[in-house]
């Protein structure tokens, strides 16, 4: 008797809830989608840099925090919002230049693990530097984006989340076009395959990297604004990088659409699991559930949804 109701509890009951309370279920799905977009924004930064320079940039999370801190700092200094935004972008471009000048230039063609570790070093540096400049207390970020929620057919929606989803979609469109059809995009993809081969063909590696890291900085800023406005600019922002990893696993390291779709799946999956299966095992399962989901995918497609197939010749 024990086992049957245990099985019922785990499998049957949650499905029943979903079917009987559709409205609540859609709300959960929508909020999952919105958090998914947040994840994909961060994942996008990873994909950009990995696609263009073959570097698995773990410091993307710290860049999101750093960009948000600069923005808030400038606003507190009394700059109007649009000027603060411009200044934040300029700071990110300078940061990209510094990273290329003092780090990447010396690490051309090193193994991936070495570059990966360098970005972790960069994470520590950015956290320390950001908090030194602007202090480490939680700062509210209000950009005047309307934040009321309204009902549509019984489902609770929030303007802010829609705005975030919209900006995310626009960003993805711009980047996809940029990568596939512009001259620089093709150069970026060449650099990702083989640094030296790209240099041999005459692609100015250094300028390419500066461009890539500044665009990633910009994406980081957008993600920072979205996260910051929602839960305030504070240290935990840099931990979302850990959340972005399963998204990359799912979507594959090198595909922009993969990052978006992956983000949504993880977002929704996490929310559902948390609401329906969470209480059974004591809650707070969202931080590892994403990984288990990604792992499950990985076992069937080792290179993720959209990644290229890994072929090894003898």
């Amino acid at each position, binding site marked *: 008797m024990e086992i049957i109701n245990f099985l019922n509890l785990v499998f049957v009951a949650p499905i029943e809830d979903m079917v009987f309370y559709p409205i609540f279920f859609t709300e959960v799905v929508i909020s999952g989608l919105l958090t998914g977009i947040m994840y994909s924004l961060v994942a996008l930064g990873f994909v950009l840099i990995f696609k263009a320079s073959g570097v698995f940039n773990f410091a993307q999370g710290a860049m999101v925090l750093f960009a948000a801190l600069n923005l808030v700092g400038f606003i507190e200094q009394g700059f109007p919002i649009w000027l603060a935004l411009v200044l934040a972008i300029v700071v990110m471009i300078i940061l990209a230049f510094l990273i290329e000048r003092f780090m990447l230039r010396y*690490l051309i063609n090193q193994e991936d693990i070495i570059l990966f570790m360098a970005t972790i070093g960069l994470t520590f540096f950015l956290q320390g530097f950001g908090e030194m400049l602007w202090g480490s207390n939680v700062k509210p970020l209000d950009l005047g984006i309307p934040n009321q929620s309204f009902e549509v057919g019984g489902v609770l929606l929030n303007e802010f989340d829609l705005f975030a989803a919209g900006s995310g979609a626009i960003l993805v469109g711009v980047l996809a076009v940029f990568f596939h059809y512009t001259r620089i995009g093709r150069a970026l993809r060449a650099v990702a395959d083989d640094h030296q081969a790209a240099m041999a063909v005459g692609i100015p590696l250094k300028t390419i990297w500066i461009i890539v890291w500044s665009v990633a900085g910009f994406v980081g800023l957008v993600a920072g604004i979205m996260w910051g406005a929602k839960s305030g600019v504070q240290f935990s922002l840099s931990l979302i990088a850990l959340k972005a990893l399963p998204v990359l696993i799912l979507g594959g390291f090198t595909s922009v659409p993969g990052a978006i779709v992956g983000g949504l799946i993880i977002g929704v999956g996490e929310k559902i699991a948390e609401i329906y299966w969470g209480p059974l095992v004591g809650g707070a399962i969202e931080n590892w559930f994403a990984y288990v989901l990604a792992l499950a995918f*990985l*076992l069937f497609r080792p290179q993720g949804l959209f990644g290229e197939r890994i072929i090894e010749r003898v």
Partner: protein
Amino acid sequence: MLYRETGQFKISYAADQSVFPISQDRWFVSVVIAVAFFVVPVLASEYLLQAVMIPLLIFSLAAIGLNLLVGYAGQLSLGTGGFMAVGAYMTYKLTTAFPDINIIIVFLLAGLIAAFVGLIFGIPSLRIKGFYLAVATLASQFFLLWMFNKVAWFYNYNSSGTITAPPREMFGVIITGPMASAEIRYLVTLCIVIIFAFIAKNLVRGRLGRSWMAVRDMDIAAEIIGIRPFQTKLIAFAVSSFYCGLSGAMMVFLWLGSAETEAFSINESFNVLFMIIIGGLGSILGSFLGATFIVGLPILLTNAPQMVGLSMPIDMQKHIEIMLFGSLIIFFLIVEPHGLARLWQILKEKLRLWPFPY
């Protein structure tokens, strides 16, 4: 310059394959061990032992474990913190359940359980490699921490959720728990670390070590020679988790005295990964050097300002410490991507060739 190798010729394969074939190396290592055993416990202050020496040894053991997996077998893993937690909690459970078993035996049993857990989380390595595997092991890290947080059975349902090291004794001397003195705990840690470092060295230079390195360098060629890549990777995961579990157990019982899951967070995994990268992948000595660097550096940075005399507000000092830590890691990766062990190797090579350049 210090090496005098003339006349040191080998008359048997055993001598040729010994751990330290050159007598100067043997002499140097035995002096270091002698100092560690006799001089340090006597001279070192309570603070130095507790804050520097014991953590350094414990993290060296974890670094050796991870180096076997990442450096020798080439399987990237970020789950070290989780396996250390397994070691710690299992020791707590075992020693509370069977208080009269010798604490060292309990450590080893906990290590075996950690090895088994490591084996399970090693299964994905069959199909996935590189970064993907790193993220899979990250899953084990989060899952294990979540389990030790949520499931009260692991900490015997006490309210605070932390596990504390009960006093245990061996040969009539109290070695764990609050009453155990720093010197005793230091000596016990030292013995365990030296024995297991020696065992790691033996594993690495024998058949197993070669099959690990073969799988690391080119697993297709290894497979065709007759090495079963999957079994080899699993053994690597098991042995590595055994070392991490053991060091986790020692961390709670011989160093901190008590801990909760926060002590085994993702930062520990990164720290240990730093140690073997900075120290040098694929070298037992590198694990020791890396541990010394990563454990020693923050302590140096914190009390460097006092030494130099300029006083700074605490949080500013904390930020600068993190900044310096990050930039030093980048600096090291640029100067010598193969870590301190490679610098040590180059220095040794130069000394043996002295005064000639080649």
